[in-house]
């Protein structure tokens, strides 16, 4: 029996749903179509099989997610991952935080940024540009929304163009969506050790 992961980690856990996922064998043609357009095409994950209960939403959300996170130009891939990670820290989605911390590290090579965020969460101290991104994205993720015009102005002062600022809004916001699915519909489990 795998243990539930309660602390932030860059080691990606598995994910186990609280509701019964759709079974591939009995999926409708609409569900099958919706499941094809997901970020990962290495088989269908329990997460996607769970979301297949609502194929209309899944069919639209997957391409939207991919465009926001992996679109060309604008905010760098690493900084989009930082936006995703910021939201995931506020919403305490351990699974999303692990995936996007690990992607941030592979894009940027900056383990220490992730260590600092996981240690101090919203009080993390980062270098200026990352701090501006992190502050804005975390404050956009809270309810009530805490982000102010001052936080937005800090993005421009840190050198982000309007397009980069927009991409940051979108990457934090799409994780306001993803976290509310992944963290609330299931739980992260530690991967079993290799024998």
């Amino acid at each position, binding site marked *: 029996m795998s243990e539930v992961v309660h602390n932030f980690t860059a080691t990606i856990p598995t994910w186990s749903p*609280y*509701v*019964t996922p759709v079974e591939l064998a009995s999926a409708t043609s609409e569900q099958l179509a919706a499941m094809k357009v997901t970020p990962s095409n290495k088989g269908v994950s329990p997460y996607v099989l*769970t*979301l297949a*209960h*609502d194929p*209309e*939403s899944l*069919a*639209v*959300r997957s*391409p*939207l997610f991919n*465009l*926001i996170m992996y*679109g060309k*130009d*604008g905010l760098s891939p690493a900084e989009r991952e930082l936006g995703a990670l910021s939201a995931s820290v*506020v*919403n*305490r*989605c351990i699974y999303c935080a692990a995936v996007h911390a690990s992607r941030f590290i592979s894009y940027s090579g900056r383990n220490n940024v992730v260590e600092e965020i996981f240690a101090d969460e919203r009080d993390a101290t980062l270098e200026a540009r990352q701090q501006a991104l992190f502050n804005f994205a975390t404050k*956009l*993720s809270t*309810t*009530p*929304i805490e*982000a*102010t*015009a001052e*936080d*937005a*102005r800090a993005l*421009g002062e840190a050198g982000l*163009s*309007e*397009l980069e*600022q*927009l*991409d*940051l*809004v*979108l990457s*934090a*916001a*799409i994780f*306001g*969506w*993803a*976290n*509310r*699915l992944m*963290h*609330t*519909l299931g*739980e992260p489990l530690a991967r079993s050790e290799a024998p």
Partner: protein
Amino acid sequence: MTTLIETIAGVRAASRLGQALNARAEILRLSEAAHDAVLLPREPGGLSHGLRAALAARMCRHVGDEALTAHYESYLAHASDLDLATLARPGGVCGDSLHDAMARHADLLTLSPREATRQDIAALKTVGVSEADIVRLSELAAFVNYQLRVLAGLRLLKEVEAR
């Protein structure tokens, strides 16, 4: 075609932010398609279009977005299930245990999703919400929170550019 997010944000096309939005037109188009899939699905399951509009308005009120609240109130006004209107306000109940439980879950997902646990899903199952409807409800709450944050972010960027 102008999307809901663009209409509410009211960003001038010639501004730098307007140009950035133009560069992200496909994202705005897909956001609009997501709105339609979540608010007006062809297969609504146990969440009627009216219930979806009521819960969306309720979540928008939690976050204090008057323009988006008005949008969902206009949907609710056209829905036939008027007994759900009380759910459009935070704290409001309608007396139907299924719908009231869904409203409480929408509150949780809006206000403090980090506190959500297995027990919250179990509570929905206990009152008889189907597993498919649990996923539909979660997508609704998650989408509206996405939309609220895109709009909040755009308003802030617009304000800074206007200074």
